Structures are given as C-alpha cells and as structure tokens.
C-alpha cells in the first residue's frame, strides 16, 4: 500500500470516528444518567439526602388552573397566547407562624385561592371569605401572579395582584379580611403584566413596587383592535409593555416614577428580581425579557441606569422567562438564573447562569454565563426556577419547571413555530399570519429538573430519582418550609394543571437554621434584608425577596442548610436601612425571629 493510500485510509477512519463520536458520547451520558437514577425513597435519601413526595393532589389544597378564552381572532393560536397565569406566592397572611399559599387563576370568572395552612398537613381555602378570590371577573382581565409585602408597615402582608388587565392592591386588615385599595393607590387602568417585585428602591423604609408589562398596555386581549400585537421579532422585540415603578408615598398612594428614574424599556418582560448585587446597599433590578436580551438596572439610590451590555448579561438575546438569585458558590455573591428555550434539533438557546466574575465588584461587576460549565443549561422550554438548599447540605440547589403546551402527544407545532419565528417583522408581529395550532403540542410533557449542587461547581439532575416526576406545564415554583420542619418544600403552579405540593423529606444528619426578619427603620417585611451566615469556615448570603422566579414568591423566612456536624460562627444581618447586626452563639435547628434594632 502506498503512502497516499495509507493516508487516505487513516483519513476515512478518522472521518467515520468523528461522525460516530456524538452518538457514542450521547449513549455514554445516557448510561451515566441511568446509573444516577434510583427508584426508591430510601435510596434517594441515602444517596442525595432527600426525596420529594407530592401531597397537593391528595390534600385539601386541591386547585386546578384555568386558562382564559381571549379574542376570537386568536382562536387558531389560543393555547400559545393563553399560556401563562399560573402563579404561586407564599405568605403568612395571619401571622400565625405557619406559611400559607396564594395561587392565581386565569379563566374568566375563575377564583384565586388562599390556602391557609392548618398546621396538621391540611389546608383551607379562605380566599373567598377574605375577599381575594373573585378577582378574575370578565372585563377586568385575569390574574398572572401575586406578590406580598407590607406596604404600610402595619405588620401584615398586603397583596399586589398583577394581571393581564387591571392590577389590584389589597390591604391586609390584620389577617381578618382584605380591603381593595387599588383606587387609592392610583394604579393604572390596564397592564398586561407578567412580573412584579416589591422592593425599597430609595431606602426610605417603605416598599416600592416594580411592575413589568409583557404585551403593550393598549392591547386588550379580549377585544383586539388589531391582530398586530405579537412581538415584532423573536429575539429583538421592543414593542412589548412599558414598565412601572411605583414609589410608595406612605399614605396609601403611589407615584409612578419609572421614566423619572431611568427605567424606560418596552421589551417583553416575563420575570424580574431585585437585589443588592454590588454591595452598595441599594437594590438593583434585573429583568428577564422574552424575545430579547435581559436588562440589568443598577440603582444609584435615586436613579437607575441600564448596564446589561456592560456587565455581560444583556447581549445575547434569548427568551428569558425566569429571574432568580442565589449564592451558589458560597462566596457571598449572588448568581442570577434565567430560563430560556431548548428544543432538541430546533432551538438550543440554553438557560443562563450568570455568575459574578472573580475580581469584579461595584460598577465594574461582570458576569459570565456558567450554565453549561455547571450543567444547568438544558431544561427544555423552561419557566420558573428557584434556588434553595433542598437537602440541607449547605449548598443551594436549583428547582426548574418547564413544558409549554402539552396537547396532542403525537403532533408537534415546532415546525410551524420555527417557520414564522424567523420571518420578517411584518409577518411575525401579526397573529393572523401564525399557523393554526390545531391541538398540537409545543414542547409539552417535559421532565422537570432538580439540580443538586455538589458544592464543587457542578449540578446533577436528580429529579426522577427524588420523585419530581410530574409532566405538567410548570410555570411558577415557590420554596417554603410549610410545616416548620427545617426543610424546604416545593409548591408548583401548573398552567391548565393542578397545584402540586412536594413535601420534602431530608436526612436528619443534615442540619439547618432559619431566620425570620422584621424591619423597623427598614420596611417591616424586611424585603431586601440580607443574612450572611458563617459556619465551618464558609459563608452563604441570602436575601428576603419581594418576588422572584416566574410569577412567584418564596417564603420570606430565610432557610440555610448546614450539612453534617456544623459549627456555627455568626450571622451578619444587613438591613435595607443600612444597619448591620451580628448574631453569635447560634444554635442549629432553630428559627430565629429577629427584629431590626431601633
């Protein structure tokens, strides 16, 4: 054989090997995944330190989300437009020490539910009795989500309800009933909103309110004046709803100041989270936008400035549907998780995990997307996600729900979706041009992700192994210690599906500690307050949040897993007012109720 022929044979062998490589690696990965999947709870407990048990459908917290029926001109794509509205938020509305659950509904005339925690594992829907159930009446729009915050500092959490329609504010009258105070608050007549966050942007001790529009506010989805209300671009759309920042004036009214303070954008907001990302004491605002880039607004105390491109989070456009934060590396800094779309062979956007770059702080803060490196990138058509220590091992894990439209299992709308999504703006922006869905699924019946943080920079999906096996179209996730056991349970709102409550069972070897904060100079909900816990020579920071994830709000109480045999050192509490308090001599397995010192 001549040298040329030998070279040719080698070339062919290498060529075939390269073609085979992706398939071989895929099979090896599948084998590894199969090996990681244990099927019984005892094994899951031993191997991962926890397992989940769905109790919502067998409990008295039965609830099924209903979808709206919009303008007839949208009939052919109705499942796609009416694809959101299942929201869940956690609140102890009556201050009995047991967290309750508020769930939004979206059918015209459907009722929202407030499940009062009866402490014995059962729940009682008290929304109708308290006046916050019948909030989806025809002509007023339908609920998308809700957030709780004590805007008047009277000690009881008030309810802000955002809708595709008239936003509503309900005052909590000492846990006995709710009074509608929308008119006094001077909220706008109509906003097609999918996100809102309570936070004290100017640190005056009163909670302010951010509200993010999705569809433009002049669009009434029940009475369309035009079908040209869809995004003008799949990844560069700027024809969405406007944004609002309502400054709390302290007398029950709010002043809308978004333009005055520099928050002017018409991207299609689906999620927002507020946190002090730079350690300045001021709360910054991150917005995850559908059909475009994310936006990050640095708060200089009185003014905001958009720094998405500068910080690295606002360049590559995707389909942002979630914004949640967590100190995933136990380094005292927040990473931001944004969910996007990944569909095999069609669209692989990948979710984003924005991790602060080493050595960058303050205005020079930069983020790197480490979703791939840390294995939390591919999550299907992802929606809500939350960070929390599910197995109390001392590192924050990540729970992600997904699935867009689960209809006919055998028929797929992806081809038509991709066809129209790449078209010119005059085509894509007109709903009349969109092909009919005809009962087809679009990224439906997807497996959820429960990513366990190994503490060394990697996450492992253990969803199937620990019992998170539902295939509903998940939207909102909230983490809460429902029965004061020192573990984080998981509550999930599914679009056109049931409310799920995953009761968490954690190995007792892993210890915990919790903090329940109450502001005095700061807002009484303590939203924006941080606890930095030091133990075993490491630290973790958590913040009381006024809304995060997708259409959701976790419990206000901060839960820290500590792992085995923890040696607690101290907890530093930084209040929104700027005060810093340090607590030493902490004990494990306790919930510390701490009021800001005068």
């Amino acid at each position, binding site marked *: 054989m001549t040298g040329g022929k030998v070279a040719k044979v080698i070339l062919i062998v290498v060529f075939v090997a390269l073609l085979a490589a992706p398939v071989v690696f895929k099979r090896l990965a599948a084998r590894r995944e199969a090996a990681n999947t244990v099927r019984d709870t005892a094994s899951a407990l031993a191997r991962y330190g926890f397992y989940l048990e769905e109790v919502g459908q067998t409990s008295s917290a039965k609830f099924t989300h209903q979808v709206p029926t919009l303008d007839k001109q949208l009939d052919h794509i109705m499942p796609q437009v009416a694809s959101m509205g299942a929201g869940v938020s956690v609140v102890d509305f009556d201050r009995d020490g047991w967290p309750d659950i508020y769930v939004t509904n979206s059918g015209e005339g459907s009722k929202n539910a407030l499940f009062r925690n009866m402490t014995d594992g059962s729940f009682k829907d008290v929304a109708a009795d308290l006046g916050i159930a019948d909030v989806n009446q025809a002509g007023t729009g339908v609920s998308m989500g809700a957030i709780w915050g004590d805007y008047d500092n009277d000690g009881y959490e008030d309810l802000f309800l955002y809708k595709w329609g008239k936003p509503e504010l309900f005052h909590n009258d000492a846990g006995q009933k709710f009074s509608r105070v929308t008119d006094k608050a001077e909220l706008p007549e109509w906003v097609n909103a999918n996100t809102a966050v309570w936070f004290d942007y100017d640190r005056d001790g009163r909670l302010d309110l951010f509200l993010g529009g999705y569809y433009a506010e002049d669009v009434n989805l029940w009475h369309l004046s035009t079908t040209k209300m869809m995004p*003008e671009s*799949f990844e560069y759309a700027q024809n969405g709803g406007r944004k609002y920042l309502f400054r709390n004036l302290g007398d029950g009214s709010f002043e809308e100041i978004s333009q005055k303070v520099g928050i002017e954008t018409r991207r299609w907001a689906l999620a927002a989270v507020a946190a002090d990302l730079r350690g300045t004491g001021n709360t910054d605002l991150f917005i995850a936008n559908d059909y475009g880039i994310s936006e990050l607004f640095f708060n200089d105390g009185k003014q905001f400035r958009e720094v998405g491109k500068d910080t690295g989070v606002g*360049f590559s456009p995707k389909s942002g549907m979630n914004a949640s934060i967590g100190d995933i590396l136990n380094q005292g800094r927040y990473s931001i998780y944004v969910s996007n779309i990944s569909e095999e062979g069609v*669209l692989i956007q990948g979710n984003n995990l924005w991790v602060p770059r080493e050595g960058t702080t303050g205005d020079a803060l930069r983020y790197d997307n480490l979703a791939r490196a840390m294995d939390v990138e*591919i999550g299907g058509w992802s929606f809500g996600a939350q960070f929390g220590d599910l197995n109390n091992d001392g590192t924050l894990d990540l729970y992600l729900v997904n699935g867009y439209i689960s209809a006919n299992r055998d028929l797929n709308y992806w081809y038509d979706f991709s066809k129209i999504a790449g*078209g*010119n703006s005059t085509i894509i922006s007109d709903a009349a041009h969109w*092909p*009919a869905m005809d009962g087809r699924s679009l990224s439906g019946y997807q497996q959820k992700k429960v990513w366990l943080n190994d503490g060394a920079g990697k996450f492992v999906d253990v969803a199937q192994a620990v019992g998170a096996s539902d295939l509903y179209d998940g939207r909102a996730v909230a983490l809460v210690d429902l029965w004061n056991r020192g573990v984080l349970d998981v509550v999930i709102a599914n679009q056109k599906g049931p409310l799920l409550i995953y009761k968490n069972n954690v190995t007792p070897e892993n210890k915990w500690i919790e903090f329940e904060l109450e502001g005095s100079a700061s807002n009484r909900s303590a939203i924006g307050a941080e606890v930095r816990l030091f133990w075993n020579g490491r630290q973790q920071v958590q913040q009381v949040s006024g809304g995060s994830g997708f259409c959701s709000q976790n419990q206000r109480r901060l839960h820290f897993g500590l792992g085995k045999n923890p040696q607690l050192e101290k907890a530093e509490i930084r209040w929104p007012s700027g005060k810093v308090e340090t607590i030493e001599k902490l004990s494990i397995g306790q919930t510390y109720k701490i009021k800001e010192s005068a």
Partner: protein
Amino acid sequence: MSQSAESMDSAILGGAGRRRFSLDNRYIAPLFITFILVVGHLGYGILESYEKTGVAIMVAIVAELVLGRIFFGKWVNLASAYISGISCGILVRSPALWPFALASLLSIMSKYVLRVKGRHLWNPSNFGICALLFLAPETVAALSVQWGNFKWPLIVIWTLGSIIIYRAKRAHISATYVASFFAFAFLRSYITGDSWWAEVAPITGPMYQLFVFFMITDPKTTVKSKKWQCIVVFFVAFVEMLLRLNHVVHAPLYALFLVGPTAMLIEIWLESRRPVVLQESNAT
C-alpha cells in the same frame, strides 16, 4: 488527489469566477460573508461568542492546510476553508464549543473523503451542519431567528448579495431557487391552508441569505451546465417543499444535502459514459 480537492464554498472563488476576476476579487465572497457576520453581530449579536466562531474558522483553516498539504502536496488557498468555517460559525447554534469545531472539521474532511472521480459531492458546510443536526440534535440547532426580523438588514444583504452573485455569473441559480421557493410557498399555502405569509416567512429570515448566496451556488458541488444548474436548484426547492409538508424544520439544508450530491453523481455517471460514446462515434 486531484486539483479539485481545493474546492470552494462560494461561486466567486471557483470556475468561471476565478478566470473572470483578478486575484483580489477572489476574496469578495469571504469579505462579503465577513461583512454579514460583523454587521449581524454588532447590530444584533448573532454570535453567541467570538470564541465559538473563531474556533469554527480556525479549525476549518488548519484542517484545510493539513489535509491540502498531505493529499494535495501544497498549501492550498484558504478562502474556501474560511467560508466553510465562518458558515459553521454563523449557522450552527449551540451553547457548547465542540459542535463548532466538529462541524468545521467534518465540512473540510468531507471534501477529501466523500469523492467520486476526483470531485467531491457535498457542499462542505452543508454536510458538516447536516451531520451534526442528524447526530447531535440535543446539542445543536441551526440558525433560524437571529438577525432580528427587520427589513433593512434584509434589504442590504439581499442587494449586496445579488450584485456579487450576479458578477460571479451564478445569479441564475439563486434567482431560480428564490422563484421556485415562492411558487412552492403558494402551493404549500394551498395544501396546508396556512397563510401565504407564513409560508414565505422563512425566506425573509437570515438563514436563507447564507443558503441562497453561499450554499446552493457552490461551483464545486453544482453541476456544470447552466440549464441543469437551474433544474437542480428547482429540485432542491421541490424537495424542500416535500420536507416542509412533512414538518421538517431544517428543510432547505436537508433538501440540498439530498439533491446536490444526487445531481453530482448523475453528472459524473453521464460524463463517465461520454468517452465510450465518442469512441463508438469515431469508430463509426
């Protein structure tokens, strides 16, 4: 290995184009595609990162240099490899780095491996991208929505592309394909009942700009006669329609993948018969 191993992804780099233009003009295509890339990225951020596109280009260039040296005995012109690499860098969409490298490598290697009678069969980047879409769909997708959906980038790219492809005497290929696409869009709309606008939507998107100007016009992987070039590209559009009716997302890429080599094989087979006919004729 024959001279034709030094294949080009673009019309302007080979065949009649090479004879017609000066040496500098041979680089119009690479410059044009670079222009698309730069404008697209600065305006719309079409690249997920410089790193990925850089890797795609570098792998293609290094592979071409090495394989050209081994099998061709000289340092080959790198314009073709550059276009293959940059096409993979733009068209492959993946959060991972390796698909960009693998698509480029397979693209270049296909020119040296998949050959019949000294001619390679597949457009290199079409082969590399389709191979990954078949083999690693969980990691790879093809560009479909980037560039925004706005008219001015569309108009600029189509105008410049048309001028360049016209000067390279390959405009008939692009024009035939575009006309066929629109005609079949009408037919699909009639069959499916979907809006005609929905059926023409894809060609108003960015992937088709690269497809129309760079892939279907590749002189090394198109048949030689002008008439048959038009017929073949018509069949590409026809097969694309059949695939679209079966809801195949990457229909144009797959149509070219199927029709292009088939046409090439038929031409090679016909050419192989020609000398025999000539001999018989001479004998007669």
